[in-house]
Every structure is written in C-alpha cells, then in structure tokens.
C-alpha cells in the first residue's frame, strides 16, 4: 500500500515542475471551451432570443407595445420605484458601511448579518412580510388606512419591497472597501482640524466613490428587475401598480409573446447599459479604482 502511493506521487512530480498546473494543454483548452459554451448557452443565447422574439414581427408590433399606455405606465412606475429606492439605499448603505467599517461597537456582527438578510431570504417572503405588516388584517394597515395612507397594493408597498430586496447592494460593496482602507485618512483629517462632515465629504467619500458607483449600478439593476417581492405586494392593477417585470408576465399570459419580449428587451437593454457603464468605468478609471483600494 505504502509503496504504491509513493510511486504514484513520484510519477506526477516532474509535470508539476514544468507548469503551475498539472493539466496538459488539451485539458486546459477543453475546460476553456466548456466554460465558453456554458456562457454562450446560458447567457448569450437567451439574451439574443429575447431580442429575436421581440422583433419577430418587425418594428411595428414592437413599438405598438412600447407606446401602449399600460406599458408606458409600467415603465414610469419602474423608473419611479428605482428613483426612490436607489437614493435611499445609497444613504442607508453608506451609513451602514461607515458604521461597520470605521467603528467598533457591540452587535456589529449581528448588524452585518442583518444587512445580508435580504440576500438569503426568498423574495416571495420579502413581499409576504409586507402583507403581514400592512395588510388589512395587520395592526398597522387599518390604522394607516384610517388616515388615508395606502401602503399595500399601492406604490409605497412596491417601493418598500424594492428597498428591502436591494438593501445589501451598496453596503456590501462598501464594507470590504472601507475596512481595507482603514481609518488612517480620517484620523489625519480630524487631527488637522476638519469636523465630521468635512472629513466625510472631502476624505471618505472621494476614497469610496468608485465602489459606491458600482453598488448604485447593481442596486439600480436589481430595483428595476425585481419580480418576486413586488409581485406579492403589487395587486397587479394595470396602469397603476404594474412594474415592467410584472407587465412582461401579464403580456406573456395574454399570449402576446411579441409584447412580452418587447418589454423584456427594454429590461435587458437597461441591464446592458448598466454593464457598459460599469465596463467604461473600469477601463477609464481602473487606475484610480485600484489606487483607492490600495490605501
């Protein structure tokens, strides 16, 4: 037994001195090809199909769907929700990351876990939580309603659910970055006489701006694309509480495949714009980004 294992180890050792990996050229090519085929089938092909289906009957049906009042209202609602949820999460995310990275306090690990919660919870549950909180059978719902405030099955509920599911994006992007940067710059600024706000605006924020921008882009993409949580709290009222992802489902269920894929192509377009923005940032400011991480 011992002898056998020894010879096996001896056989492989010359190969490992030639290359960092023991795999031969063919294996590496095979792995690469496998990865590329996988990417093409699971990412590229669906993306191409979305646009192919959307334009299957030419431009006219495509634009008919886009200018339909229900579609326009869905686009408007999606943009509105993102326009509220993203800035709020920007503020929450920076505040949370700031607190976690720059201060020591009790319950820090718990707070970090809490921030990750929306990542680990199924979006359906995120939606149902708001039904339980603000539904007609909850404590809060009827009380708010007596003041004429509607949360569930109205725009505020959709915004709340979106904020919940997109909460970690900004904070998760910033926490490691800020932890890596440490508190040296801030301490220097404070010792030179800057007050808290000045330190934040002139020292911390410039240091984290690229990470922040990444976080905002990802947060925005998810805010516009969220389906599960929003589906639960929306009530699916056409022209009022239908976001773009929900409208895609409705059109598909109405056998309007061209319409469904037309709206889907708009969403895919938004995702592509996000990716392009991210890539441009990386190419143009790659140096600055690397530098800010090196602090």
């Amino acid at each position, binding site marked *: 037994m011992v002898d056998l294992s020894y010879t096996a180890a001896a056989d492989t050792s010359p190969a490992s001195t030639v290359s960092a990996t023991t795999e031969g050229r063919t294996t590496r090519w095979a792995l690469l090809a496998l990865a590329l085929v996988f990417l093409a089938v699971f990412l590229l092909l669906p993306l191409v199909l979305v646009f192919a289906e959307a334009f299957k009957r030419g431009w006219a049906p495509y634009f008919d769907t886009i200018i339909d009042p229900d579609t326009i*209202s869905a686009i*408007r*609602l999606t*943009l*509105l929700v993102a*326009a*509220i949820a*993203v*800035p709020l999460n920007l503020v929450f995310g920076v505040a949370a990351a700031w607190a976690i990275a720059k201060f020591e306090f009790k319950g820090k690990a718990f707070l970090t876990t809490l921030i990750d919660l929306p990542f680990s919870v199924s979006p359906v549950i995120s939606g149902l939580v708001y*039904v339980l909180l*603000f*539904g*007609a*059978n909850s404590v809060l*719902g009827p009380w708010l*309603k007596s003041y004429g405030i*509607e949360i*569930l*099955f109205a*725009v505020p509920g959709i915004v709340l659910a979106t904020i919940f599911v997109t909460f970690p994006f900004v904070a998760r992007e910033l926490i490691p970055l800020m932890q890596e940067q440490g508190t040296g710059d801030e301490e220097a600024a404070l010792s030179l006489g800057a007050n808290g706000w000045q330190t934040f*605006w*002139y020292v911390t*924020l*410039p*240091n984290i*701006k690229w990470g922040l921008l990444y976080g905002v882009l990802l947060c925005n993409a998810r805010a516009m694309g969220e389906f599960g949580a929003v589906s639960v709290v929306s*009530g*699916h*009222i*056409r*022209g*009022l509480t239908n976001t773009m992802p929900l409208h895609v489902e*409705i059109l598909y*269920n*109405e*056998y309007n495949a061209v319409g469904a894929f037309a709206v889907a192509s708009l969403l895919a377009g938004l995702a592509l714009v996000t990716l392009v923005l991210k890539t441009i940032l990386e190419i143009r400011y790659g140096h600055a980004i690397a530098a800010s991480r090196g602090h």
Partner: protein
Amino acid sequence: MTQFRPRFLLAGLLAGAVQFGILGFAFADTTILNVSYDPTRELYKDYNAAFAKHWKAETGETVTIQASHGGSGKQARAVIDGLNADVVTLALESDIDAIADKTKKIAPDWRGKLPNNSSPYTSTIVFLVRKGNPKDIKDWGDLVKDDLQVITPNPKTSGGARWNYLAAWAWAHSQFGGDEAKIKDYIASLYKHVPVLDTGARGATVTFAERGLGDVLLAWENEAYLALDEFGADQFDIVIPPSSILAEPPVAVVDGNVDAKGTRKVAEAYLGYLYSEEGQRIAAKHHYRPSKPELVPAEDLKKLPELKLVSIDDPIFGGWKKVQPEHFGDGGIFDQLYKPGQ
C-alpha cells in the same frame, strides 16, 4: 483626488422622483377597480371601454376602470389582504364567499343581489384537440382510451380544473347510473392519463398549445376559442361533448370598499350593465354564454351550441359548500383518487 459632488446627483434624482410622482398620480375622475380572474382579461378589456362610454353618455361623468387579473383564489386572497376592489368578478362562488366571511365587506346574501345567481355569463368545459381530431375524441368516455394524454390543471390550485373534474364526474354519474365505485374508477383512470398537472388554466393551455404536450386539453369554452384565435385555427379543433358542467362565474360589489370610497353608484351600475344588451353581446363575443341569450342576436350564439349542462347545485353535487371539502379538501376524494406515477 477629484471632489465628489453628490449634492447635484441627489438633487437630480429627487427632481426626477417628484416629476414621476406628479405624472403617476394625476387622477381626477372616478376610478373603480375590478379584481377578476385570469381568462376574463380580453372580455373586460372590451367591456370596460363599453361601460365607460355608456356611463359618460348616461351621467356625463368620466369613469376609469382599472383591472387586476390573476388566479381566482389568489385574487380573493389579495382582496382579503386589503386590495381595494370595488367589484370582484371571480371564477368561483367560494372565492367571493371567502371574502365575505373573512372581511365582512361583502354581504352574506350577495348571490341574490343580481339576476341568475349573480352570474351575468356562464361557461362550460369543452375539449380542445389537435387538428382533425386524430384520436377521435367525442365524449368523456373517450378520454380514458389507451395511449391518450389529457391536459388539465391541478384541481387543488386551479378553479378551472375543479370544473374539469366535476364535468367528468357528472358525465360518469349519468353513464354509470350513480354507481360511486365505477365513477371513482373512471376519475382515477382519467387522471392517470394526465402527464403533468399545471397550477392554472393558462399554464395548462400553454402546455398543450405551445409545448405540444397531450392529445386533448380540457378547457373553458372561452379559453379554447382564445387558443384557436391565438395559435391558429389550422392547429386545433374544438370538440363540444354531449354533456358538461354549467360554470357560473359570479360577480359582486365589495360593499365595504365602495362605501368607503363613495363609488357604490358607479360600481353597481358597472355590474348591472353586464346584463344589458351590450354587456351580453360582449360576453357572447368572447365566448361566454350570456345569461340572457334573448338579448343577443342568433348569429352570435351559433358558436355556443346547446348541450346538456349539469349545475353545481344539482343533487349529485349539492353546491360548492359541500363539494369543496368533500372532493378537494385535504384527504378528499381527489386526493384519494390521484396517485401520481401509478
């Protein structure tokens, strides 16, 4: 290091949000919300436009009708959870009963408030088969022939699927002279021919029409015609069996909500107009069976041939309150008969 200017960014985003807000909430006229089930989308799209026109001519007021569609049970749940429906137009009496029981927003005697048990239109279950009917399916007995696959959704989750099940039961009841053992054998055998139980009626239609599974789809009459329109009449045929079930999708005003919103008058008129000549014609056009066929020109009724229809209130069923727990409750007859993979 360049200076970050978040103030401009925030100001821009805020301005954007305010603008969207103003555009989004610029409603001035009366608005009512109709919470309905899946297959009625096309029907109410037409009817809402017709009613808005009628209301404008009658009162001079502009009314906007919002619509929400989904599975009937799910929609009832949303209204119970607070979805602010003025009227509900659902697939099953038991769904409206659930709203009445749980919220008290609908009077318990709602079913008597409008003609024909508050069902302005009825429907039935028919067969959609592949073009030319290659498996020669004509009646319920043909569905259990060898090598034949039947597509029908899950009666535990789908209202339409319950009607399918009950239609089959009603046929078997008259076929076997009420012999319960034989009826159950037939139903068990029928569901052995079902390769996949979808959760809803639309899902089952897509399985049959787009995925190409199965030889026959048990479908709402209006869904069958819709599939014909959408996927092409050259692909499918509709077979009307000699007997089927009488489905009465009910409608009701949600009293609690209309009184709070002050929309009772228009909500009642909205449902009432379904029984008018125009409402009945629109229903027939969308392949629902009008409850007042005398108001509809004969040519519009041609596609809705007479057949023997058994009501849910027939003694063999005894109404939804009895059927629901007996057949579809946990451990009910369906659970006993449906054994997947056997």
